[in-house]
C-alpha cells in the first residue's frame, strides 16, 4: 500500500506537522489542563519517586532508631508516626502511583494507540493523588501524622485510643488517593480492552498489557473494601456511629476483614505489573520470543483470582476455626504455583535465546534472586503453626520487604534503565548504574536477610526501642548499616537517571533491538505516539517487520489522516483486535483540575470538621462533573469515515459500545464490590459481633420501603422507555420520560433518607442502627445520582447531543437506573425482611 492511500497526498513532514498542531499541549498555567497520557504518566512517576524518597528518609530514621538498644534518637510518639508514614507512603503513595504512572505512560505505546480511553480521567486521578498525598504527607510538618500503623487496626485507631486528628488524616487522605486509584483502574481496563492497534487480538497482546488488565481488575475489585472501611471508621470517629466498638455491637475484626480484603490483593497489585514489565524486557535481552506465553496469561489470571482468597492469612492469630485457617493456608500455598510458572517461563526464554547482559538485565537478575527468597518465606508464613510463631515479628518485616523490593523495586529499576531512552531520548551509561545496583543489592540483603533472624529471636515489629539483654543489638546494627548502604545506592540511581536524562548520548530508534511497538516511535516520542497505527500480525511486530517503524512514521497505516482538529485513535473489538470505531479523544481541559479541587475542599473541610463547607465542596464537585459530562460528544450524526487500509469506521459517539459505555460497566463492578462489602459487614456484625441483638430493630411499617422500591422501579422503567422513545421518535420523545425519571429519583432518594430519620433509633445507639443507616444512605446516594442522570441526559436531549444514533447518555442512565433499582431492592430486603425472619 502506498502513502497516498492514506494521506491524500500529504508528505510525512506535513502529516507530522499537522498532528503536532492537533496534539499540542498548552504552556504556562495551561499545563494544569494537560491530559495527554505521556505527560500524565510522567507526572505520576515523578510524584511516586518523590514519595519514595520521603518514604526512604523515614526508613532511615527507623533504622537509625533501631541501630542500638535503648536508643533515644526519636521518642515513641515520633517513632509511631514514622513507621506508620513509612508504610503508608510506600504502599499508597509510591507503589500504586508508580505502577499507574508506568502503565499510563507505556500502555498506549505498547498497544499501538495514541492515548488512553479517558485522558481527562487520568489527569483527574493524578490530581487526586497529589491532593490526597499532600494531606497525608503534609501532616508530618505539624506533628499530626497518622500513628496507628499503616493498616490502622481498630480499636487502636478509634476515637477512644487515638483522639487527635492523626487517624482522620490517614482515613481521609488515603480515601482521596483511592479515588485516584479506582479511576485509573477503570481507565486501564477500558484502554486495554478497546484501545489497541489493528490486529492486536488477545493472543497477540503484550504480556505487560495482560498483567495490567488483571491488575486493573484487581484494583477495581480490591480497593472498594478499604474505601468502605475507611468511610465507616471515619464516620465512627466523626459522628460516633459504632461500627467497630464492641460494647455497642461493633467488631474490631470487621475492620481487619475489610482492610485485608484490600491489603492482600494489594501485594499482587504491586507485583503483577512488575512481572509484566519483566516479560517485556526478558525477550529483548534473550533475543528470543517469549516462551510460554499462554501459560503466563493463565498464571496471571490465576494469581489475580487466588490473591483474593488470602486475606485471612494476615489474621491467623485472631481466633477463627482451624478449618477456616486451612482454607486460607491452602490458598496461600496455592498462589505460589502461578508465580513459579512465570519464573520458569522467564528462565525458559533466556535458555532458548542468546542472552546478553545489558544494565537492565543486571537488575532483573537482582529481582529473580531476591524475589525467590520472599516467595519461599511467603510459603513458610502460609503455614499456620509457623505464622503463629513469628506473627508481628521482624521476620514478617523481612518477608514483606523481600517480596515488595524484590518483586517490585528491582524490576522497576530495570524498567527505568530499559525505557530511559524512550522517555528522555538519551541512552543510559552503565557505569553509575552498575555501582548503584551493587550498593542496592548488597545493602538490601544485608538489611533484610539478617532481619529474619532478628524476628526468629522474637523481636516484635513497631517497638521504638529494646533492652540490650535481648541480644538483638548486633543484628539490628548490621541491618541499619545495610539500610544506609542501600540508601546510598538509591541516591546514586537517582543521580544517574537525572544525569543521563540531561546529558546522556542521544539514543537512536530501538536501541535495545526490541520487538514491541513502543520502540517503533521516534525518541523521545511525539505526543501522538504514532503518525499512523499499524496492522500487527504477531506478538513482536518490529521483529516480524523491521520496516514497520518507518511505515508508521510515513503515515502508511491507520489514521494517517488528520481531520477536523480531532485527536483520533483506533477502537477495536476486544477479542479479535478488528478495528470497529474511531475514537475521538478529548483535549486539554480545566474540568479535571476543578473537579479534584472541589473534592479537596470536600475532604479537607470534612477533616477539619467544617461540615457546611464540605457540603459546598461536594455540591461544587457534582456541578463540575455534570459540566464535564456535558462537554462530551457530538451534536451531529456521523457517517463512516475513512480510517486507512480502505476501511471506513464510525466515530465512537455513533457506535453502540464506545469507551464510555465500558467505563460505566467497569464502574459498576467497583460500586457493586463496595455494596457487597457493605452487605458483608451487615451480616458479619449480625452473625459474629458481641453485643447483639440490638436494643431495637427497624420499624416494620412497610410505607417507606414501599415508596422507595416503587419509585426505583418506576425510575428504571422511565429510563428504559426513554431509550426506546429516542430510538423510535428522536430525542424529543425521550425528554418527558427523563423528567419522570428525575421525579422518581428524588422520591426514592427521599424515601431512603427517611429510613435513618424515622424508622430506626439514632445510629449512635448500636452498630445495627449505624449499619442500617449507612445502607440507607448508600441507596439514597444512588437514587440521587439516578435523578441527576435523568436530568442531565434529558437536558442533553434538548441540546442536541442525543439522537437515535448518539444514544449513549440515555443508555448510561438506563444502566444506572437498573443497578440502582436492583441494589435498592436488596437493601430493602436486607433491612426489612431479615429482621422479620430473625426475630
Amino acid at each position, binding site marked *: 500500500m502506498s502513502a497516498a492511500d492514506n494521506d491524500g497526498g500529504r508528505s510525512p513532514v506535513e502529516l507530522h506537522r499537522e498532528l503536532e498542531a492537533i496534539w499540542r499541549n498548552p504552556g504556562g498555567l495551561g499545563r494544569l489542563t494537560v491530559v495527554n497520557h505521556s505527560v500524565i504518566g510522567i507526572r505520576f512517576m515523578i510524584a511516586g519517586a518523590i514519595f519514595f524518597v520521603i518514604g526512604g528518609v523515614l526508613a532511615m530514621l527507623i533504622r537509625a532508631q533501631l541501630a542500638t538498644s535503648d536508643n533515644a534518637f526519636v521518642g515513641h510518639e515520633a517513632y509511631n508516626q514514622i513507621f506508620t508514614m513509612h508504610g503508608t507512603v510506600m504502599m499508597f503513595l509510591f507503589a500504586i502511583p508508580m505502577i499507574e504512572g508506568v502503565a499510563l505512560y507505556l500502555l498506549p505505546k505498547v498497544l499501538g494507540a495514541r492515548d488512553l480511553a479517558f485522558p481527562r480521567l487520568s489527569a483527574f486521578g493524578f490530581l487526586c493523588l497529589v491532593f490526597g498525598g499532600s494531606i497525608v504527607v503534609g501532616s508530618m510538618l505539624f506533628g499530626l501524622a497518622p500513628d496507628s500503623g499503616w493498616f490502622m487496626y481498630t480499636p487502636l485507631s478509634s476515637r477512644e485510643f487515638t483522639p487527635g486528628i492523626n487517624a482522620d488524616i490517614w482515613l481521609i487522605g488515603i480515601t482521596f488517593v483511592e479515588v485516584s486509584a479506582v479511576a485509573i483502574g477503570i481507565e486501564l481496563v477500558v484502554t486495554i480492552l478497546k484501545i489497541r492497534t489493528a490486529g492486536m487480538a488477545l493472543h497477540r497482546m503484550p504480556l505487560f498489557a495482560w498483567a495490567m488488565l488483571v491488575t486493573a481488575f484487581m484494583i477495581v475489585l480490591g480497593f472498594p473494601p478499604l474505601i468502605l472501611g475507611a468511610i465507616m471508621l471515619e464516620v465512627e470517629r466523626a459522628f460516633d456511629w459504632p461500627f467497630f466498638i464492641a460494647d455497642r455491637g461493633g467488631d474490631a475484626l470487621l475492620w481487619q476483614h475489610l482492610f485485608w480484603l484490600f491489603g492482600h490483593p494489594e501485594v499482587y497489585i504491586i507485583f503483577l505489573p512488575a512481572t509484566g514489565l519483566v516479560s517485556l524486557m526478558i525477550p529483548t535481552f534473550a533475543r528470543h520470543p517469549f516462551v510460554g506465553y*499462554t501459560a503466563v496469561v493463565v498464571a496471571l489470571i*490465576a494469581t489475580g483470582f487466588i490473591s*483474593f482468597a488470602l486475606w485471612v492469612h494476615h489474621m491467623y492469630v485472631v481466633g477463627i476455626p482451624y*478449618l477456616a485457617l486451612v482454607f486460607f493456608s491452602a490458598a496461600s500455598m496455592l498462589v505460589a504455583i502461578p508465580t513459579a510458572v512465570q519464573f520458569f517461563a522467564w528462565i525458559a526464554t533466556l535458555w532458548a535465546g542468546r542472552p546478553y547482559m545489558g544494565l537492565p538485565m543486571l537488575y532483573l537478575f537482582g529481582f529473580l534472586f531476591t524475589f525467590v527468597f520472599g516467595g519461599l518465606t511467603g510459603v513458610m508464613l502460609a503455614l499456620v503453626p509457623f505464622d503463629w510463631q513469628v506473627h508481628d515479628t521482624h521476620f514478617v518485616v523481612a518477608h514483606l520487604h523481600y517480596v515488595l523490593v524484590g518483586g517490585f523495586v528491582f524490576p522497576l529499576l530495570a524498567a527505568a534503565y530499559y525505557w530511559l531512552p524512550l522517555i528522555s531520548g538519551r541512552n543510559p551509561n552503565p557505569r553509575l548504574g552498575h555501582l548503584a545496583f551493587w550498593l542496592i543489592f548488597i545493602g538490601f540483603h544485608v538489611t533484610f536477610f539478617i532481619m529474619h533472624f532478628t524476628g526468629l529471636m522474637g523481636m516484635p515489629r513497631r517497638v521504638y526501642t529494646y533492652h540490650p539483654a535481648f541480644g538483638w543489638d548486633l543484628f539490628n546494627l548490621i541491618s541499619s548499616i545495610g539500610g544506609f548502604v542501600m540508601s546510598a545506592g538509591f541516591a546514586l540511581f537517582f543521580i544517574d537517571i537525572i544525569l543521563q536524562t540531561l546529558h546522556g548520548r542521544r539514543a537512536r530508534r530501538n536501541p535495545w533491538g526490541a520487538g514491541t511497538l513502543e520502540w517503533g516511535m521516534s525518541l523521545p516520542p511525539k505526543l501522538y505516539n504514532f503518525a499512523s497505527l499499524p496492522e500487527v500480525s504477531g506478538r513482536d511486530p518490529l521483529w516480524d517487520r523491521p520496516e514497520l517503524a518507518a511505515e508508521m512514521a510515513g503515515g502508511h497505516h491507520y489514521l494517517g489522516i488528520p481531520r477536523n482538529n480531532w485527536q483520533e485513535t483506533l477502537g477495536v473489538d476486544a*477479542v*479479535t483486535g*478488528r478495528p470497529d470505531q474511531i475514537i475521538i479523544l478529548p483535549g486539554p481541559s480545566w474540568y479535571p483540575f476543578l473537579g479534584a479541587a472541589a473534592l479537596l475542599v470536600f475532604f479537607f473541610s470534612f477533616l477539619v470538621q467544617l461540615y457546611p463547607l464540605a457540603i459546598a465542596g461536594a455540591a461544587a464537585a457534582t456541578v463540575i462533573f455534570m459540566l464535564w459530562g456535558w462537554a462530551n460528544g457530538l451534536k451531529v450524526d456521523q457517517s463512516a469515515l475513512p480510517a486507512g487500509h480502505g476501511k471506513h469506521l464510525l466515530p465512537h459517539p455513533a*457506535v453502540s459500545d464506545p469507551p464510555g459505555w465500558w467505563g460505566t460497566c467497569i464502574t459498576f463492578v467497583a460500586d457493586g464490590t463496595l455494596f457487597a462489602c457493605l452487605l458483608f459487614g451487615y451480616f458479619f456484625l449480625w452473625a459474629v459481633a458481641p453485643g447483639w441483638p440490638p436494643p431495637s430493630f427497624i420499624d416494620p411499617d412497610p410505607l417507606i420501603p414501599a415508596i422507595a422500591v416503587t419509585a426505583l422501579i418506576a425510575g428504571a422503567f422511565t429510563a428504559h422507555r426513554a431509550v426506546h422513545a429516542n430510538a423510535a421518535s428522536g430525542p424529543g420523545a425521550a425528554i418527558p420520560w427523563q423528567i419522570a425519571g428525575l421525579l422518581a429519583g428524588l422520591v426514592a432518594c427521599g424515601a431512603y433518607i427517611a429510613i435513618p430519620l424515622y424508622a430506626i433509633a439514632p445510629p449512635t445507639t448500636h452498630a445495627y442502627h449505624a449499619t442500617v443507616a449507612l445502607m440507607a444512605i448508600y441507596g439514597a446516594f444512588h437514587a440521587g445520582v439516578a435523578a441527576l442522570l435523568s436530568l442531565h441526559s434529558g437536558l442533553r436531549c434538548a441540546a442536541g447531543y442525543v439522537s437515535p*444514533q448518539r*444514544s449513549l447518555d440515555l443508555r448510561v442512565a438506563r444502566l444506572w437506573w437498573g443497578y440502582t433499582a436492583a441494589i435498592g431492592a436488596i437493601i430493602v430486603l436486607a433491612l426489612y425482611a431479615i429482621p422479620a425472619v430473625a426475630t
Partner: protein
Amino acid sequence: MTRSPAIASPVWLAVASGGLIIWASSFVFLYAGLSIGCALGWHHVTLLGANALTVLLAALWLVHLVLQGCFQWYALGLWKRATGPNEGVARFIAGITCLIAATGLASTVFIGAAVLVLPPCA
C-alpha cells in the same frame, strides 16, 4: 446507532475465567457456610451420621466439584469448536479456558478437601 459485533466479545474473558469463578464461588460458600454454621451451632446437630455442618460443607464442595467437571467438559468442547476466520484467537481463548478450568478444579479439590477430615468449628 450501529450495532457492533464487538458488544458481547469481552464476555469471553469471563467465560475463559469460568474455572476460577467456580472456585471463587466454592471458596465463598465454604467460608461463609462455615462461619454462619458455627455461629448458629449447626455442628451440634447430627445429620446422616455426621454433624450437620460438615454434611452441608461437604455437599457444597461436591456441588462445586460437579460444576467444575461440567465446565471442564464445556471447555474441551470449546477447544474442539475453535475454528473459523478467527481461529488463532479462538484457539487461544479455548486454550486458556481449558487451563483455567483445570486450575480451578485442582484448587477446589485442594482447598475444600479439608472439610472431610477436620471438625468444622474447633
